[in-house]
């Protein structure tokens, strides 16, 4: 009884870490520049396909391909930001939606063209996947890795935000963009770097997700809903918010499926609706 609770919490937390990595970039960029980037999960897919290519065509080991997944996704996001997104910062939300949805469609077709519609796999090494037994509970090694990795990234991000000058600039820009500009902060540059960081993290999430949920061209659309849920529930522009929301959603999804399987997918939507009605600006969002 207690052991199953432990495994549900553990698995839910790991799933939450994956959701966090996929969502934190969107939360910060949305909060900072109010730019609706629905193509965020395409960056995740870029990271995923980068890992697949490096591992299956070039024989790279899994862990070595992860930084490349980050860099590839970050590069793609910067290029898109400089060429297309920049022109639409003052456009309506609806126009931003349309542009980024168009980009998602193009990316799905591009992935299908280069990689076919086949399911891809990128297996981490044996030692990373080995189960760890504590008493009579089996903990999946890879999920432990996800948790450790997720926590490390969170710590790094918080450090970056709280302890560096760049972080201070980002926080200022999220709080009050006009004021920040008025103070001489180069908001556009800060945003570009933040955007790259967020995209890169999504790419990392995409690469790590392959082992858990697989990869095919429709990944960019399939995960968009989950990412939006995490961002909305967590609150825009907040790392802590994304973290909390991702963990809550990951655990409630897992717990729901274990304790109330007949509810199935209902639970995650019910939790979202309930949380949003209670706190419309998100758990850690500004009013």
């Amino acid at each position, binding site marked *: 009884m207690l052991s199953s609770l432990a495994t549900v919490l553990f698995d839910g937390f790991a799933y939450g870490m994956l959701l966090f990595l996929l969502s934190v970039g969107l939360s910060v960029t949305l909060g900072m520049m109010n730019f609706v980037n629905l193509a965020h999960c395409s960056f995740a897919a870029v990271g995923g396909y980068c890992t697949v290519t490096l591992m299956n065509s070039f024989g790279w080991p899994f862990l070595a391909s992860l930084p490349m997944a980050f860099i590839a996704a970050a590069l793609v996001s910067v290029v898109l930001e400089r060429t297309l997104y920049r022109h639409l910062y003052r456009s309506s939300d609806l126009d931003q939606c349309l542009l980024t949805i168009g980009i998602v469609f193009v990316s799905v077709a591009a992935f*299908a063209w280069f990689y076919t519609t086949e*399911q891809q796999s990128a297996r981490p090494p044996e030692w990373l996947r080995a*189960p760890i037994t504590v008493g009579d509970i089996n903990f999946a090694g890879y999920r432990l890795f996800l948790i450790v990795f997720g926590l490390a990234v969170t710590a790094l991000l918080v450090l970056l935000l709280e302890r560096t000058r760049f972080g201070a600039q980002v926080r200022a820009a999220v709080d009050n963009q006009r004021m920040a500009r008025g103070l001489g902060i180069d908001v556009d540059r800060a945003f570009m770097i933040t955007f790259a960081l967020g995209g890169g993290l999504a790419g990392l999430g995409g690469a790590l997700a392959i082992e858990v*949920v*697989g990869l*095919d061209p429709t990944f960019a659309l*399939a995960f968009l809903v989950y990412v939006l849920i995490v961002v909305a529930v967590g609150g825009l522009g907040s790392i802590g918010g994304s973290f909390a929301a991702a963990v809550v959603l990951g655990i409630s999804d*897992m717990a729901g*499926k274990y304790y109330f*399987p007949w509810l199935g997918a209902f639970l995650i939507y019910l939790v979202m609706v309930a949380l949003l009605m209670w706190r419309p600006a998100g758990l850690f969002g500004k009013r």
Partner: protein
Amino acid sequence: MKKLLIAAALAAAFGTAHAQQTVRIGLVLSSSGQFADAGAQLDNGIKTYMKMHGDTVGGRKIELIRRDTGGIAPDVAKRLSQELVVRDKVDILAGYVLTPNAMAAADVSAEAKKFMVVMNAATSVIITKSPYMIRTSVVLPQVMETFGTWAATKGGLKQTYTMVTDYGPGHDSERAFQTGFKNAGGTIVGSVRFPVANPDFAAFVQRAKDIAPESIYIFIPGGAQPAALGKAFAERGIDKQKTKVLGSGEATAEAALKAMGDNALDIITAWHYDYKLDNKLNAAFVKEFNAMHGRNPDFFSIGGYDGMHAIYETLKKTQGNTDGEALIAAAKGLRWQSPRGPMSIDPETRDVVQTVYIRRVQKVGGELVNVPFDKVENVRDPDGERRKMK
């Protein structure tokens, strides 16, 4: 005399022109969206068949007009089928990856009296929707009920816990397997249904483990899920020697095996086709498929391959006559050797009759392979048989 010669020449010209008229086949597939890979593999199977057997039958050329439904969209599938008949004047309707699409298009086949070949959709009741329809893929109860019966008899199992995805095909296979299993003396100790597009199975597998059944039966659609489920089994420490894992063939498809790795070993499945089937026809088919498409065929491909074969054979029998009545009459009772083994079209239900293979995942030459160790031949769809008796 000259007039006669001219008349004869004209008659000959007209005659050959008529004989050279193409046979147009409307191919409705899901080429984009969630089921794009299924559509692509089905089409690959068709292309391979046409490469191996030419594109002319009974003196007439075969022309394919392809349309995409984008996924589950019965309104679109129906409209596309209507347009193929009314606008593109096709002689035959074919394809149909998904059940709702096939059901909707059947109305068009019935109204326009067009021969329709369902090359994938596997729900039993589809075949009743048009008297001009045949199916060359598989019928879920055909495999699953047979599997249930086998499991409780030759499989020697007395208990099972079923886990299926919560949608039409999942419900159908759950019902079919449980019927076969119970009728052969087994007991169902519990069941659970996963939400559709469920990314993570750990919680469900843990529930199963808590009950510690003698066997677990799973049914999930292809794509990313089989691998995720296989991994969940390994992570939760399900010992396949103590708990037999039974599944549909989709659970151990090539991509799933690759993603599951050794977690897949000893999973027992029942299915009608695997690219590693050991016979001459299949070897030739796989070789040509590899050369053309750079990957291995799967059951979507064989549905397309045999669908084209059925079309070619019926056209040969009617000598190029594409009238719906003529083609369906020629199709009833058609039997042939396919890369999947011997198969036929039931003369009464117009549905596919074929061999169900019972396979176990084993390592052969360093590769994970579904190795058939038993089979049930000439299996008809039991639901179809029950409908006959009503």
